[in-house]
């Protein structure tokens, strides 16, 4: 019974956030932007000198756009509650802190997956005019979801740290920027330090998915990022109440 109720709370919060996403322009604007970016990279491949019948051409560069997309989706989720004071109501209701965080996270994840679904249009085009391998298409989308889910978790932490949405978005983008491009530093440094830095980078773990390889270690990496950042977000909310 208790367990059922908890899931219920999480879903109630997720549903409420989803409703707000689609009742306000945020989700539409952010998703449209992402689909447009993906479209540009898709067209550049098609009209290029060596067009490939793969999704790699637009999946790899699109993943970079997560740096913008994810924090814009998550910036409101926890920051606004702190600004409006509605946290006081949530946390005086019989709801656990993590149910709030996970519920909101699910809403952002659903929005992100819906956005990705819109890019399937390009995949249909590829199937219509070429003969792509289905394996890499599916693994690429799995990678996109995992990468995006990790980026959203980072955005959630950023949103928990402040009551200002802009600050939250900038914090999230900064963190994602570093975690994405730190692999360049790793390659430069080389040696053990370089390897460690390479392992930390979000981009390092994405390449294989785009190539059609589903490696458990990469899945574990993204799931760990999600777990760590969501955990930190819950703790950060708790400490804000103690102050």
């Amino acid at each position, binding site marked *: 019974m208790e367990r059922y109720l908890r899931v219920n*709370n999480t879903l*109630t919060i997720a549903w*409420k956030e989803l409703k707000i996403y689609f009742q306000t322009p945020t989700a539409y604007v952010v998703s449209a932007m992402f689909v447009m970016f993906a479209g540009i990279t898709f067209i550049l491949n098609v009209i290029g000198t060596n067009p490939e019948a793969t999704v790699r051409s637009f999946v790899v560069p699109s993943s970079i756009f997560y740096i913008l997309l994810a924090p814009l989706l998550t910036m409101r989720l926890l920051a606004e509650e702190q600004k409006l004071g*509605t946290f*006081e109501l949530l946390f*005086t209701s*019989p709801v656990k802190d993590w149910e709030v965080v996970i519920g909101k996270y699910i809403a952002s994840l659903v929005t992100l997956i819906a956005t990705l679904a819109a890019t399937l249009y390009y995949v249909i085009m590829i199937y219509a005019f070429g003969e792509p391998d289905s394996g890499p298409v599916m693994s690429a989308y799995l990678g996109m979801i995992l990468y995006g889910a990790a980026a959203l978790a980072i955005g959630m932490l950023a949103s928990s740290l402040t009551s200002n949405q802009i600050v939250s978005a900038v914090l999230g983008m900064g963190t994602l920027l570093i975690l994405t491009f730190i692999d360049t530093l790793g390659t430069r440094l080389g040696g053990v330090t370089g390897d460690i830095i390479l392992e930390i980078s979000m981009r390092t773990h994405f390449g294989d998915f785009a190539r059609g390889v589903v490696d458990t270690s990469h899945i574990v990496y993204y799931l760990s990022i999600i777990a760590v950042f969501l955990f930190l977000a819950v703790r950060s909310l708790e400490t804000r*109440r*103690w102050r």
Partner: protein
Amino acid sequence: MIELDSITKYYGNYPAVTDISFRVEKGEILGFLGPNGSGKSTTMKIITGFMPPTEGTCTVAGNDILTNSLEARRHIGYLPETVPLYTDMTVSDYLEFMGKIRGLKRERLHKRVDAVVQICRLEEYFDTFISKLSKGFRQRVGIAQSIIHEPDVLILDEPTIGIDPIQVVETRELIKSLGGEHTLIVSTHILPEVSMICERVIIIHEGQIVAVDKPENLATRLRGTERVELDVKGPTREIVSALEKVSGVESVNRKSSLSDKGYSSFEIEATRGLEIRSDLASSIVNNKWDLLRLEAVGMSLEEIFLRLTTTENDTNKTGNMSVGEVSQSE
């Protein structure tokens, strides 16, 4: 229903409340009175479980607010000082959401949403976005969410602040009507409101409780004597000496004379707890003087409040201030 035991809360090194203990019985309406920054909101945040106290324990309906937090929260409805509303939601969506996270199931949820919308008279605004509502209506939505799950305990932090006078009256009536089935704690710094709504008052100042009593008892308790005012027509000196002979009378002061009609008014202080009015009246009548007015005077809440929350030095000054002047400075 609610029990606070030596609650202390520090913000950093600054003590917001120190060693607060009190109990609220079931069905009681308790007023929480204090100037701004006295620790009212902090205490309420602790009772609702939003903020853990630095020291002390608090139980709501027998559940410790820290160790059995979720169960305690099920019994609480809360309206914080800044009415917390999701402005991007409609009234109905908002109320439904608040009901759901408090564990209402579908059928009961719909019934309760309809009920609170009716109680708070929000029918017309059912599908309006909260961002479009005026302050008074937002306040009502805030109250509506606090009672949607029929909580045993209702905690309202300055519920009448910032709304227009007609809505203030309506809101007070609404709050009053909620007493009985709910146990209420209402904080305010508007003094008349307390005597209007509350059965018992706690006055809090600089994070400490300075007085707990019924609004009418506070006056006598604080003064230590009963005070009676009377207007009599007759020779002043003889009246004073006659009145002083009435048992229980401690002092008789002539306040003023209404010279044109020959009446003088006197203020009499008597031992606390004694009813001396009939003795006074018969003494005057026996002497064949004319008695125009005889009444016991209570101290107004403003006076009590100022007496309790100002330092010794300015007590004398403020003691003479009329109620009108005080309310202006409010």
